[in-house]
């Protein structure tokens, strides 16, 4: 694993977001939706508490829609334009390329997330929140975004069509979030054995994100997201290797 190669691929990919208006459109829409959901859905003011829970608790739902928009181009575009032949004949391994691209998308998501800092300023102006909790929630949200991105990157490598990559990624992401949602679990718990219900719920983003979004960092939740990212990226590399020339 050559760190230089990962870095160069990441840098190129990251700059690629800004070569077109995509990055700016995405960031503006992300900020608008994040603000809207915090104030209108999460009732930021009515709660009367100095924290950013309304902001962070909405992230799984925001990410379902927005993260696939970042990840859809990662591999589908390379395959469509044929530049994958160029990339894969440079002295770069598949894993370096997969990780570099993933990190670029992750860094971009991190940037979009950081640009929500006016909310943080607002809550500090209005009251005295626990900034440690906010920082922990931020890290948790970023980690979850990585999970969504790894799923999206892997799905992007299965197709040359970015629209297909987007739609399928949204659906798979939705499944991963909904697996922990009350209604879905109730549906299973009425007939399935308890073990199965637990397994389903333990695969959910919601189950693992819930504690993090309140600022509680549990190693098991961290491990869940890290291994989820690793598994999807591993699958991503296998798919790129097998289907690059199709």
């Amino acid at each position, binding site marked *: 694993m050559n760190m*230089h*190669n990962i870095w*160069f*691929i990441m840098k*190129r990919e990251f*700059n*690629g977001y800004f*070569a*077109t208006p995509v990055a700016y459109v995405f960031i503006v829409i992300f900020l608008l939706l994040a603000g809207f959901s915090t104030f209108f859905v999460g009732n930021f003011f009515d709660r009367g508490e100095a924290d950013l829970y309304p902001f962070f608790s909405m992230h799984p739902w925001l990410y379902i829609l927005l993260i696939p928009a970042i990840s859809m181009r990662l591999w589908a575009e390379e395959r469509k*334009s*044929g*530049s994958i*032949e*160029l990339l*894969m*004949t*440079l*002295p*770069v*391994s598949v894993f370096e390329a997969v990780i570099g691209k993933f990190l670029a998308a992750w860094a971009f998501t991190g940037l979009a997330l950081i640009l929500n800092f006016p909310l943080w300023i607002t809550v500090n102006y209005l009251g005295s929140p626990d900034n440690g909790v906010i920082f922990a929630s931020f890290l948790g949200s970023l980690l979850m975004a990585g999970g969504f991105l790894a799923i999206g990157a892997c799905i992007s490598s299965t197709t040359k069509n970015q629209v297909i990559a987007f739609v399928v990624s949204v659906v798979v992401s939705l499944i991963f979030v909904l697996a922990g949602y009350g209604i879905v679990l109730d549906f299973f718990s009425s007939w399935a054995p308890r073990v199965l219900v637990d397994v389903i719920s333990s695969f959910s983003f919601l189950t693992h994100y819930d504690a993090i979004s309140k600022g509680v960092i549990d190693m098991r939740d961290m491990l869940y997201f890290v291994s989820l990212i690793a598994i999807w990226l591993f699958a991503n590399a296998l798919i790129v290797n097998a289907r*690059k*020339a199709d």
Partner: protein
Amino acid sequence: MTLRIEIEDLAKHFGEIKAVDGVTFSVSKGEVLGFLGPNGAGKSTTMKMITGFLTPTRGTVRVCGHDVLTDPISVKASIGYLPEGAPAYADMTPEGFLKFIADVRGLRGAEKRRAVASAAEKARITHVMFQPIETLSKGYKRRVGLAQAILHNPPVLIMDEPTDGLDPNQKYEVRTLINEMAEDKAIIISTHILEEVHAMCSRNVLIANGKIEFDGTPQELEALSRYHNAVCVSVGGVETEALSRFVESLDDVAGTEPLNFNNGIRIFPKDGKQITLELSERIRSNGWQIESLYVENGRLDEVFRTLTTRPGDAA
């Protein structure tokens, strides 16, 4: 003669289709190998296997001593590759694109700046360095791909149809560039433009239906032609038929055919022999005045057709 590319019994099957089926050849330093064949013959597939993009079904590829299966990174590091259609990152500028390639190729600092500047100059793209690649014309896009391939001064250069879609001036420039680099590199160029065989190549491999049909110099390729060493003669004041009858009575003549201009005939020698001198003496000793006489080298398009279409193929 240092062997730079060694290919042995290379094959790639896509299900039932044998795109490449047992290809063996090698290329040394200083050689420009013209890889000929009709579309779909397996040229691009072979190149993709040499560059490590496709995994062979069987056979081995060694580039500068490295096996592409066991040490793909070393193989890729020693090759400059221009894929078919010269794909690039369309939203980058040639400058950013070449810098990225230089980074990944391990060039740093002053060395990197020199390599980018020199490749841009050789490919003649210095004045479009800051325009997005997607806004460039087809010719310039091809040259950006070329600059990318030669950037790290690789010992092995593999180019898939480098002159496809270029105008005659651009083709000339690309050929000149390739000839300039030929001396200290091993180069493979695929093409179906037969004039390039003479313009660039020191050797040809002709492939059809995944198999090698010919491996030799351009001159040897021409010698396979029916027209090789055929002599076209016209004689003043003598009927074509009388001339043909006379010529056909000579020992080394296999046959004749009339030319559709200036009353001349084309004379085919037996076994591709050189018969010009003897022929002109005999005609003159007959008291005839030769108006024009020239020897044909052979027709590549005819050889190409013969070698790449099997008897029975509709063509």
